[in-house]
């Protein structure tokens, strides 16, 4: 049981970071990016190809994060332009349709060009024993990176002017414009950050199990579930829900079976919507 819970925390920290990247973009008046997981997979592919080309892992990871950010930048400056012109439900719907299209195209391209490519980063070093359970060094590093990312995100949003500007545009776009914040620049920043966070999670996931080119949609689904449970627009909520669902995930696949895990996670999301529609730490509309 302890082992399953510790594994759950390792997984959950990464789920949490994944959810932050999705929820930030949704905060732009309801832009739902269904190609989000594909940003992660593309970043992983770029890391893998760069390493094959002979770059050391650390450098390749840098290139991969850059690629994730670039994906976000391109999405922001092409298809999402049309989305930003709409408001309310229309914005949600158009973003959903367009990014679903992007997801299909990326899926098709990846399967055609790189059907067998997968990223797995092997982290050397001995397992460390925590609470009597041996934890692999890959898990430890992945968790450390995710935790560090959370701290960095938290400080960015709370303590820097730029971070506050990003939050302001999510809370009231017109109010943000009235204090001199350019919504276009903030959107670009958010999409780039989102792509980089997706890429980061793909990298940390590959430290414990291979990330293949077909995993795009499952990354998106995990991010969606965590976002719903944690509450839209809440970094702390994503952190909490990520860890909670990570534990649910590993414990249920350990005791019940992997095949039911998705259903249990979706059940947790459905239950949250019924009991607390705004999520654990979300703010009611």
């Amino acid at each position, binding site marked *: 049981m302890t082992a399953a819970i510790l594994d759950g925390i390792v997984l959950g920290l990464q789920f949490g970071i994944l959810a932050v990247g999705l929820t930030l973009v949704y905060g732009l008046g309801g832009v739902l990016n269904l190609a989000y997981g594909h940003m992660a997979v593309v970043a992983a592919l770029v890391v893998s190809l760069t390493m094959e080309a002979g770059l050391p892992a650390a450098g390749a990871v840098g290139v991969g994060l850059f690629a994730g950010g670039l994906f976000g930048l391109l999405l922001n400056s092409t298809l999402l332009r049309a989305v930003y012109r709409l408001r309310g439900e229309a914005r949600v719907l158009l973003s959903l349709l367009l990014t679903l299209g992007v997801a299909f195209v990326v899926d098709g391209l990846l399967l055609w060009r790189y059907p067998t490519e997968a990223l797995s980063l092997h982290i050397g070093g001995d397992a460390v024993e925590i609470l009597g359970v041996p934890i692999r060094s890959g898990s430890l590093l992945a968790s450390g990176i995710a935790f560090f990312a959370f701290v960095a995100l938290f400080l960015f949003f709370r303590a820097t002017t730029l971070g506050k*500007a990003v939050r302001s545009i999510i809370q*009231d776009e017109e*109010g943000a414009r009235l204090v*001199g914040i*350019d919504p276009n620049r903030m959107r670009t920043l958010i999409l780039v950050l989102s792509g980089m966070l997706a890429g980061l999670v793909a990298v940390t996931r590959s430290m414990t199990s291979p990330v293949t080119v077909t995993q795009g949609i499952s990354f998106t689904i995990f991010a969606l579930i965590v976002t719903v449970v944690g509450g839209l627009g809440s970094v702390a909520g994503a952190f909490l829900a990520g860890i909670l669902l990570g534990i649910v995930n590993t414990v249920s696949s350990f005791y019940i079976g992997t095949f039911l895990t998705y259903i249990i996670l979706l059940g947790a999301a459905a239950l949250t919507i019924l009991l607390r529609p705004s999520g654990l730490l979300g703010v009611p509309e």
Partner: protein
Amino acid sequence: MLEVRSLSAGYQGNDVVHDVSIHVEEGEAVMIIGSNGAGKTTLFRAMCGLLRSSSGEVLFSGEDVSRMPAQKLVRRGIGFVPAERHLFPRMTVQEHLALGAYPKRPDPETRSIVFELFPRLGERRRQRAGTMSGGEQQMLAVGRALMSRPRLLVLDEPTTGLAPKLAHEAYEALGVLRRQGLTLLVAEQQVPLAMAFSDRGYVLENGVIELEGGSQELADDPRVRRAYLGVT
């Protein structure tokens, strides 16, 4: 300082205000009165770069700012406090004031001016805007706008939703700002308050300027007395 020439603006091709010309000189307090739906908000939104005008121009300190978006106008020195306030519900008073000075660091001197004007904000630095009362939110909206050190402050119905006592207090605060040399343009439905406060005014009805003149002159006009001051 501000000159609006033959401005027309509206939504989806239907103009709400037609051919409006107004001007505000440095150091003046000017009011725009008009009933609900007369077009005050549309006029202000077009002037302040939140809505694209269909024709006409806006000059600020001699510069044509007709096509300038709100986020740039605020750096030119126009602060706008909309009727709906548009605060950030999950941010504290302090964070609002910090963002008000964006992209610069908040100036401690301006901040102490705001806290002197609205001691309530000073007592509630860590409170989130979403949990504040209507009066406090209005103070915060004005305080946030002041942090950019505007030369012209534009307020759209600053007394919306305020109890009479609070509405009086709001105008007392605006009076203090005025004496400090700030130029003010205020749209108001509570006409007696605005008249006592301003030098000049315009009457906007159905999107057109119907009357203009000194505040006392307007207060004596039989049409204004009938329509806005409840005198028959």
